């Protein structure tokens, strides 16, 4: 079985997954300390990762009912993400691997999101189209095998989850914004305002920055015309129309991607996959839609272990010198062949 670590953003994660893809434990320690800042503070995230990493590993082993003696390989997220945060997971994973003489399998975080779909008891077999939408990344991929993916389209600016966070902020809602927008939108009319759907963006790429700007101007105009509190009075309608625009843009791109790829299997991942409206819209698009449970959609280590099941370990002499990487490497998103 594989012990995997994931520390690319603000969740300290460790998981134990069997070689046939069963999740024995999936521990996610969320750092709520960032909510007060309205976003992730990298230095605070790194300090928390260091504090929590070893106890999270102990917890994952205990919950799985195993010890390090039962582990055959260590997997770890190498990037992309916050480098200072990634380095905690990397230093920890490398040290355990070296000290125990275990193979180390470095995993690309985005490949991890896709590999969440390979886990038991209900693994999805390629080929399929996968939408990954979170606060950190939003892209569409074609998945033909278990170890790589081809990017079909990606956001050119903000991530979908980031758009929801920013929208929530403009509406005076707490961070993270997605669940709050969804709750408020339930009482609103999605047709009350027409927010942009990025029609001008070619192909399967996406853009959410203009949407946020449109909301900003709409709020400003409402307050100007109807006096202070004008926008607040329409908050439910604004939330509903804003959420509709995010979901609609994603849905149209997914529909086109399935069409162009000639595939009828769709998988979704990332925190935005929890959005009820998005799930409902996408379910209408494909005969087979695969949505891992919520704890496997948001950042977690079980998905890293899942990816590692299909990837080669780093050669032992290179393990001590392995470094993290911050951004999508040229090969990672452009060609979809994370190593």
């Amino acid at each position, binding site marked *: 079985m594989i012990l995997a670590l994931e520390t690319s953003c603000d969740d300290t994660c460790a998981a134990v997954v069997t070689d046939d893809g069963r999740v024995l434990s999936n521990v996610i320690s969320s750092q709520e300390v960032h909510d007060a800042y*309205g*976003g992730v503070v990298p230095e*605070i995230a*790194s300090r928390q990762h260091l504090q929590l990493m070893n*106890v999270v590993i102990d917890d994952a082993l205990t919950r799985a009912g195993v010890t390090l003696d039962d582990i055959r390989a260590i997997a770890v997220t190498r990037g992309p993400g916050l480098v200072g945060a990634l380095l905690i997971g990397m*230093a*920890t994973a490398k040290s355990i691997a070296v000290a125990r003489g275990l193979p180390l399998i470095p995993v690309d975080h985005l490949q991890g999101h896709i590999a969440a779909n390979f886990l038991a008891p209900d693994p999805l077999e390629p080929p399929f189209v996968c939408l990954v939408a979170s606060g950190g990344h939003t892209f569409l991929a074609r998945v033909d095998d278990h170890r790589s993916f081809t990017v079909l389209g990606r956001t050119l600016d903000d*991530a979908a989850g980031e758009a929801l*966070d920013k929208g929530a902020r403009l509406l005076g809602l707490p961070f993270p914004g997605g669940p709050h927008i969804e709750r408020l939108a339930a009482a609103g009319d999605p047709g009350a305002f027409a927010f942009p759907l990025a029609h001008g963006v070619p192909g399967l790429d996406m853009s959410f920055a203009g949407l946020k700007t449109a909301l*900003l101007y709409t709020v400003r105009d409402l307050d100007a015309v109807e006096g202070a509190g004008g926008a607040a009075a329409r908050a439910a309608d604004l939330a509903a129309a804003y959420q509709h625009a995010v979901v609609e843009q994603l849905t149209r791109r997914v529909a086109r991607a399935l069409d162009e790829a000639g595939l009828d299997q769709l998988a979704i991942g990332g925190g935005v996959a929890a959005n009820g409206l998005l799930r409902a819209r996408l379910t209408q698009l494909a005969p087979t839609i695969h949505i891992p449970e919520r704890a496997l959609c948001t950042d977690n280590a079980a998905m890293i272990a899942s990816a590692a099941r299909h990837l080669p370990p780093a050669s032992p002499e290179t393990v001590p010198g392995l470094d993290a990487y911050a951004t999508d490497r040229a090969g990672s998103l452009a060609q979809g062949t994370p190593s």
Partner: protein
Amino acid sequence: MIVLGLDTATADTCVGLYSDTEGLELELARHHRPAPGERPGHAQQLLSLAAAVLHEASLTWTAIDRIAVGVGPGTFTGLRIGVASARALAQASGTQLAGVSTLQALANGAVGDDAPVLACIDARRGEVFVGAWAGGTCLLQTRAVAPADLPALVAGLGGDQLLTVGDGAVRYRDAFGDTANIPADEDRRHHVHGLAVCRLARFAPVADRDALMPDYVRAPDAVRRPRSSATA
């Protein structure tokens, strides 16, 4: 006792392997010093150097009795790589842990006797981390100070020609005027030595793994990552 010492608080990556076990006396060290302008290579260097000293001594990881790590103060990311590695090595092998002050290791490595030493590590943002020791006795507790305060600090420690070492002493040499005895820039005493970490750790209390944290001295800046910054 076989002690593996690690320090990544400065730009250097420092490793020492010490043993006073009869028939296995060891004093080995490996250091990586980035060239001027080169970034520190803590993440790539630390375990590589540690594996190299163990290989040189024909020892395995399980032979180590105690893993010692410099807890700073110093660069935050570097410190975390050292502490995370030490903690995980201990987690993997059940070895004891000990944390030592990087400033004290710097002072300890600079003299062989009980003479007083002021250790200075560049804290960036116009400040210096300082601490002073005479043998095992602390003369000045770790703190961050402005370079302009350094001469008064030296005077308070007995003044004239106090041996003063570290990258902070080199960088702010001018601020000291002629109050301190600062070796030439290229003198090895300005660098942490892996064996100094080991020597101090022999007498340090065993650290609780989950309580072993860097001595940051400074609180984190609450700067959000750009993706969540205020809009428009």
